[in-house]
């Protein structure tokens, strides 16, 4: 079975190609192909999971040469173990539900065929990342996801805001991806292979510098893709895409790819405490920043977007403090509850016709199913027991506590672990507050808009109900000691850390069940957040509880003006620089001569002579310019 793992990305890829080429002419229509193209890999992924169930830590790998390069060859193949299988199932299930949901959400949209095909292509790319056996193969999926995200955010391309957001998303992640590519170079060259298994096998012998530089560079890509500080700014804007896309890409899968890659290469990352420190600091900042920004947004989807930023930081933070299984546990539960939340938001937005919560309110009567399921999702997000988020978030906080106090042998420096722990606890408080605000502003009070409210059609309701189940109950898998960690390749017999010769033998198989201390504190903090918001709201149900923030509200809403900063430092100066360069170029010879610092006469006279057709002068100028330039380089190097 695992030999056929390549089918998992191949089938949705085929569906995408068919959808793009044939579109509406397909038998069964674009929807039929799209849903089938996701249902089949879902079945395959489940089969894979069953196949590896007996021994989830063993890696089943196929690999063939893609191409020689003249240096390290590039291979393609599949690498299936418990981690890959579990994440593949997660991706497929969310993608399938999103495809079903989209058939109703985008009913009547003339661009539905290309939309559905791009979702299929996206799914294929994510699954390629999940099952890749080679880092460059992984990079292909990684970037194709980025471009699918670009297209899907830009789905409503008549709107300038949508196309601007699409460009921003692609470019921001691309900045990180350049680092990611160089990270692959560093590790691949040091290991003599881009194959993941070869890299993990040879990790201990790679040399300290290669590991440090390589992993730090990989973190650039992770930070971009998983929307972590300082490259998180694209995610909230990405909400310009259709809401099901937000659920799939910007909550459950693509942003999870960064976390997944860290997990996939974890034995390399743990060799570099500095990298983990960096990851931890980024996570701590992102958690708080995202949660504070979420407190003040009026756009329902932007609240969820910032909460995604913040929640992703729990995963990277968890991985950074050595909580491998805890971080992935949160990845899985978050995929369920955040996909649910976005799909609920879609159901709300579809009927009220706006994203703004100031034009919502009182919707619980008109949208009973959406209300009930979204309540489950929000409870999970806020980490209230016994919903899934409670368990997974607690696992992360428990890992951070253990690393900070030295109860577990820390893989990073202890102050960094403390940072993650404290930020994580504060974020629990903030999460409770903004989740409550969203809940109250959307579903309670009186309706402040004018639309006719109607509940979502069946094709949208069913995915909500199906996602509500894991969002509510998935956390209980954490109670069974060692079960999920075993699945994820952290089992007792599976020498996950056998890869590393560190004195760090496997940290004792962590229990993902709640630790009494952290669980109590976290729950109390979460409830405090809920209560404060609720009390504020009770006093004036029509007003936005964000008013309690006072003068901080504006900076929170603008997410601490980072966009403005990037605008001022990068986005606006770039065209100015470009114009200068182009101006320089238009003057041609002239620019060349003056650039090499010799002779204003060339600047004026050379060009005039060119226009007079004085070929000799032109040729001489050109030649001299080159000579001077080369001489300049010679002096400088």
């Amino acid at each position, binding site marked *: 079975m695992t030999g056929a793992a390549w089918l998992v990305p191949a089938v949705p890829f085929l569906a995408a190609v068919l959808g793009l080429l044939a579109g509406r002419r397909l038998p069964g229509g674009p929807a039929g192909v799209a849903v089938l193209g996701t249902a089949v890999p879902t079945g395959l992924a489940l089969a894979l999971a069953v196949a590896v169930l007996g021994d989830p830590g063993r890696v089943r790998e196929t690999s063939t040469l893609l191409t020689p*390069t*003249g240096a390290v060859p590039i291979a393609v193949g599949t690498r299936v173990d418990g981690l890959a299988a579990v994440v593949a199932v997660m991706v497929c299930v969310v993608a399938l539900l999103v495809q079903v949901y989209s058939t109703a959400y985008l009913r009547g949209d003339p661009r539905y065929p290309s939309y559905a095909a791009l979702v299929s292509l996206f799914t294929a790319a994510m699954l390629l990342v999940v099952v890749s056996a080679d880092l460059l193969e992984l990079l292909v999926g990684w970037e194709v996801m980025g471009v699918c995200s670009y297209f899907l955010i830009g789905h409503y391309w008549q709107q300038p805001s949508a196309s601007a957001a699409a460009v921003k998303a692609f*470019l921001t992640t691309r900045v990180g991806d350049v680092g990611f590519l160089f990270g692959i170079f560093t590790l691949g060259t040091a290991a003599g292979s881009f194959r993941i298994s070869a890299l993990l096998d040879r990790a201990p012998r790679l040399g300290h510098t290669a590991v440090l530089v390589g992993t730090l560079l990989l973190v650039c890509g992770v930070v971009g893709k998983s929307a972590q500080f300082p490259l998180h700014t694209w995610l909230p804007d990405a909400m310009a895409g259709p809401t099901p896309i937000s659920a799939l890409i910007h909550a459950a899968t693509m942003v999870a790819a960064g976390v997944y890659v860290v997990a996939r290469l974890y034995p390399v990352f743990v060799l570099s405490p500095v990298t983990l420190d960096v990851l931890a600091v980024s996570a701590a900042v992102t958690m708080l920043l995202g949660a504070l920004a979420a407190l003040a947004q009026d756009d329902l989807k932007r609240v969820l977007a910032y909460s995604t930023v913040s929640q992703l930081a729990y995963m990277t933070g968890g991985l950074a403090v050595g909580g491998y299984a805890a971080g992935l546990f949160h990845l899985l539960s978050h995929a369920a509850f955040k996909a649910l939340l976005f799909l609920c938001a879609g159901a709300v937005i579809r009927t009220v016709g706006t994203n703004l919560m100031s034009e919502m309110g009182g919707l619980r009567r008109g949208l009973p199913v959406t209300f009930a399921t979204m309540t489950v999702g929000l409870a999970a997000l806020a980490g209230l027991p016994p919903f899934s988020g409670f368990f997974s978030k607690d696992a992360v906080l428990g890992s951070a506590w253990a690393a900070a106090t030295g109860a577990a042998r820390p893989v990073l420096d202890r102050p960094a672990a403390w940072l993650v722990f404290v930020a994580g606890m504060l974020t629990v408080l903030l999460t409770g507050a903004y989740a409550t605000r969203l809940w109250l502003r959307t579903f309670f009070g009186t309706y402040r808009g004018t639309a006719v409210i109607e509940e979502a059609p069946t094709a949208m309701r069913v995915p909500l109900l199906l996602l509500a189940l894991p969002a509510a109950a998935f956390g209980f898998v954490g109670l069974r000691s060692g079960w999920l960690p075993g699945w994820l390749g952290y089992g007792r017999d599976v020498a996950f850390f056998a890869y590393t010769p560190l004195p760090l033998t496997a940290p004792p198989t962590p229990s993902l069940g709640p630790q009494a201390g952290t669980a109590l504190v976290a729950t109390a903090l979460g409830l405090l957040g809920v209560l404060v918001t609720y009390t504020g709201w009770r006093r004036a149900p029509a007003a936005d509880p964000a008013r309690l923030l006072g003068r901080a509200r504006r900076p929170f809403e603008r997410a601490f003006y980072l966009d403005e900063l990037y605008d001022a430092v990068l986005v606006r100066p770039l065209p100015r620089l470009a114009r200068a360069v182009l101006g320089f170029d238009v003057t041609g010879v002239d620019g060349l001569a003056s650039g090499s610092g010799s002779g204003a006469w060339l600047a004026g006279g050379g060009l005039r002579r060119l226009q007079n057709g004085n070929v000799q002068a032109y040729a001489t100028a050109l030649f001299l310019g080159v000579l001077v330039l080369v001489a300049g380089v*010679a002096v400088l190097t």
Partner: protein
Amino acid sequence: MILVALLLLPLAGCAGLLAAPDRWARRIGVAATATTFGLSLALLAAYDYHRGGFQLGVDRAWVPAADIRFHLGLDGISLPLVVLTTLLSFLCAVYTLKTLPEPGRPRAFLALVLLLEVGMLGTFLALDLLLFFVFFEVVLAPMYFLIALWGGERRSYAATKFILFTLLGSVLLLLGILVIYAHTATFDMVRLGRRGGADLPRAAQDLAFLGLFLGFAVKTPMWPLHSWLPDAHTEAPTVGSVLLAGVLLKMGTYGLVRIAVTELPAAARDFAPYLGVLAVVGIIYGALCCLVQRDIKRLIAYSSVGHMGFVLLGIATLTPVGVNAALLANVAHGVVTGLLFFLVGALKDRYHSQDIAEIGGGVLAKAPLLGGLLTFAAIASLGLPGLAGFWGEMLAMLGAFRPAQGLHRGLFLTLMVLAGVGTVLTAVYLLVLLRRVTLGVVPERWRERRFGDVTSVELAAWAPLLALTLVLGLYPRLVLGVTDAAVRRLLGGG
């Protein structure tokens, strides 16, 4: 003999065109380029992939007095470029079936295209320095006339600039060749390659290299010798632009690898840092120029400066991976930029403008297929993994990550990082271009104007390039598998 036939076929087509009446011209053009393309496919079959060195060679005395020989041959370095040339020529002939700019005259137009094809193929096949030079020069005249007669408004300025620059390059190239000859008394590239410059004193090697380097750099074009390119591309007819970007520029990088690096390896080591620096300046500079460019053809032209910068960077590393990357990026750029020029030409045919602001957006709404294809080509051009543009540029950076021994690693690492910045800037201008052209609402002035989406002839001419863009992206071995052995042999690494 098959190589001679490859040159004779388009030449015969050219002669046939001159003899035949005007109304047959297009069909003759397609027939001649199609058979040449077919023959190049036969080459693919006849070529022995397991053998290194030159194959299918022809070696006859030509000017015995000066020991100039008619010496042709094929190896893994030239094979992909030969096929690319015949393919693009064929597609240009197909495209001309329906589209020919003012003043028409398909007979003359296609005769020039066929003559151009002879020159391009000869350049890639020649194994005698002077023969190479002759073919290299043969290309100039037809391209000059294509621009000067079928070009846009400022065609005579552009054509003159083109010929001036390239002639200047040719002079330097010839000087380089003569310096080599002066010390070795041979033009035989095979023998020269085998000797590896051992017969030349170091100073002469450097001098010869400088001549060759500058000569090829004009053609490639390398910054700062590129300024003929934007004008030539802006004014050239679509077919001219496609062949110019698709093949002519490659003659420069091919010559650099085939002659300069192979025959003067020690000098290549001396010059590699300069080449690398200029290449990377070109990458960044080209991208910045694209960012604020108003003319869409000019933009694609500047983008070529950037893309060819990656090719040059690959060569500058003097590593097998870098040179492989250069050869792959050559082919990929030919395919993708050829496609882009076709698409932009189609845009111009419909809007009668190549001004981005004048087109004003909404192409996806006005002509969805054309907009979609433009999007695809732009995404390929920005180097998306999984499409043709990625592998060459990625491997060029990988080459710079660990350059050949004796080159300054710190310098090349810096160059690699800057090239990485260049890839981001490339993505910036292409996405901004898409945003301004394909996305958005159709401006008022175009609402009423009717024009069709992509025609079947256009699609036929573009389909092979679309397919190759995807195939090379998914299976780069198609080129690398052919080049790798030849490149290792060339660099003496294995």
